[in-house]
């Protein structure tokens, strides 16, 4: 059994008098690529924000690499932050910095490397996520949506984290760019030995690159496992969710 990287125990969250999570428990082992799915408003993104320490749950325990996120001292938390990278939904790139400096920022802040070296490492990361060299000196506003996502991924990878969090990595991308981005994530996860935890709505992502799926429903974890295992769970939302894919494939074959 591989080491547990993310461990969430009995997390409960209430937002605005609304119970979002009622005892959510899940765990992710090293090297896994895991997706968190669930209908709109089931608190997927909230759970992600709680795991990375941006939002405090009312009850429960969250551990990353065996370190409790909400009991950590600021120094412990900073050390922890160096070990994971986050790709936010809209990229959240700093619009006033060049692409290269965006990726180099974590290196500027968290290492003692000279600035030119940080920029060189940033360009290495940009090459690894498949961006052309010419993009390095541009500003985020000059790039397409797909390229911005890649820059954000490069920034998340800047400090060579062991764990990568992705919030809706393929949202807002056209199907071709989305599939290319999926393949890139899997390639990097395999070659860098990353553990990946992603929140997604994209069925194609699920079917192409995911080892294990965790379903969030009604404030609890409805089930976890491979897609084939999940198909046997009797739940109206889940059945409809997978039916959407089946009908799409049928119509694709029919035409």
């Amino acid at each position, binding site marked *: 059994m591989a080491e547990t990287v993310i461990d969430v125990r009995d997390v409960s969250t209430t937002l605005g008098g609304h119970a979002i999570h009622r005892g959510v428990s899940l765990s992710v082992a090293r090297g896994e690529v895991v997706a968190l799915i669930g209908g709109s408003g089931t608190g997927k993104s909230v759970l992600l924000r709680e795991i990375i320490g941006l939002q405090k749950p009312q009850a429960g325990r969250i551990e990353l690499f065996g370190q409790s996120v909400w009991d950590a001292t600021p120094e412990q938390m900073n050390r922890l932050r160096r070990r994971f990278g986050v790709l936010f939904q809209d990229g959240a790139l700093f619009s006033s910095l060049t692409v290269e400096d965006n990726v180099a920022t974590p290196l500027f802040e*968290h290492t003692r490397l000279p600035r030119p070296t940080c920029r060189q*490492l940033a360009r290495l990361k940009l090459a690894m996520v498949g961006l052309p060299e010419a993009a390095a000196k541009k500003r985020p506003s000059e790039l397409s949506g797909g390229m911005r996502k890649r820059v954000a991924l490069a920034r998340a990878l800047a400090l060579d984290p062991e764990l990568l969090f992705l919030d809706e990595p393929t949202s807002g991308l056209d199907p071709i760019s989305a599939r290319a981005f999926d393949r890139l994530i899997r390639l990097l996860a395999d*070659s860098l030995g990353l553990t990946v935890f992603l929140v997604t709505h994209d069925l194609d992502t699920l079917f192409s690159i995911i080892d294990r799926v965790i379903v969030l429903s009604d404030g609890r974890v409805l089930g976890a496992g491979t897609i084939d295992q999940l198909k046997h769970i009797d739940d109206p939302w889940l059945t409809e969710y997978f039916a959407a894919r089946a009908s799409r494939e049928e119509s694709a074959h029919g035409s």
Partner: protein
Amino acid sequence: MAHAHAHFDEAGGVLIVRGDWDADAAAALPDLAGKRVRAIDGAGLTRLDTNGAWLLLNAVRPQPDAPLPELRGFVPRHRALWALVARHDVAAAAQPSPPRIGVRALAGRGALAMWGHLVGLLDFVGRLTLELLTLLARPRLWRWREFGAQLRDIFVGAIPIITGMLFLLGVVFAYLLGDQAKRYGANIFVVDGLLAAILREISPVIVAVLVAGRTGAAITAQIGTMKVTEEIDAIRTLGLSPLAVLVIPRTLALVIALPLLVFLGDIAGILGGMVVAKGQLDISFHMFLDRTADVLLLKTLLVGLGKAPVFAVFIALIACRMGLTVTRDARSVGAHTTSTVVQSLVAIILLNALFAVMFVRLEI
């Protein structure tokens, strides 16, 4: 956690590395300048990430076209990671730092930017005039509600700061003037001097400066943020003109609000002067007002009030144009807002000088 350690074996040309190699391992690298590394022994590596691998690669191979050293004792995972980094290394080649910009180049760029602003303002005035002509033909398209909201923000919102500042300036001016006048026993002439200075120069210029800083900056920041969030594009696609919807109501509101504010500033400044005149110079309020009625010419008041709409047009045009030329990033909004205030202040001072010369020549 094992600390990174490196040792260069000169005889065999082998670099032996041990421990965790990540971004912090740079300090552990020995000085390899002028030495040729034939092989790297990585049997003792406990961890290797892309940052660490690249630092190692960069140290053993200063030129990208030099041959790669042989790898010894690397576990397959580290070997694969090394290959991945080596494949993308071309992109990370050192780049010359950007050339330093000299004073002459800076001055030249500044001059070009000023020229650009001047041409841009002219172009903007032209487009605005065309827009106004269309609006005159179709009065239904006037945005009265927006105009009213702007007038409230620009005029009512500015009353406390304008009256407060001008009152204090009146106090200071009367005090300094009174100090001189007392020596010659010319106390009552302080009223003459105060009226001329406040009404003709101080109130119009200071009020315009305050409004440029307060309203001009706000207009640029607001329109600029709307540009960033694509609201301006949304206005366009609805078949509306951003000039008609945003610029003309603001310009009109400023043109109307500024003379009103100058008038309030006049009153506040005179009140400030009256207070000092009573305390320092023994000129009662009654005497002060009597003297005012005797010496104040209507044209003194009108000169001051007449300058205000001209200042207002320039503040509005500069602020709106800078807002509309914001590019889609956060820094641009800040830079353009700063530029609005600077341009407005320069315009106000220059226009005021122009007016002064003009009025002297015309003997007003």
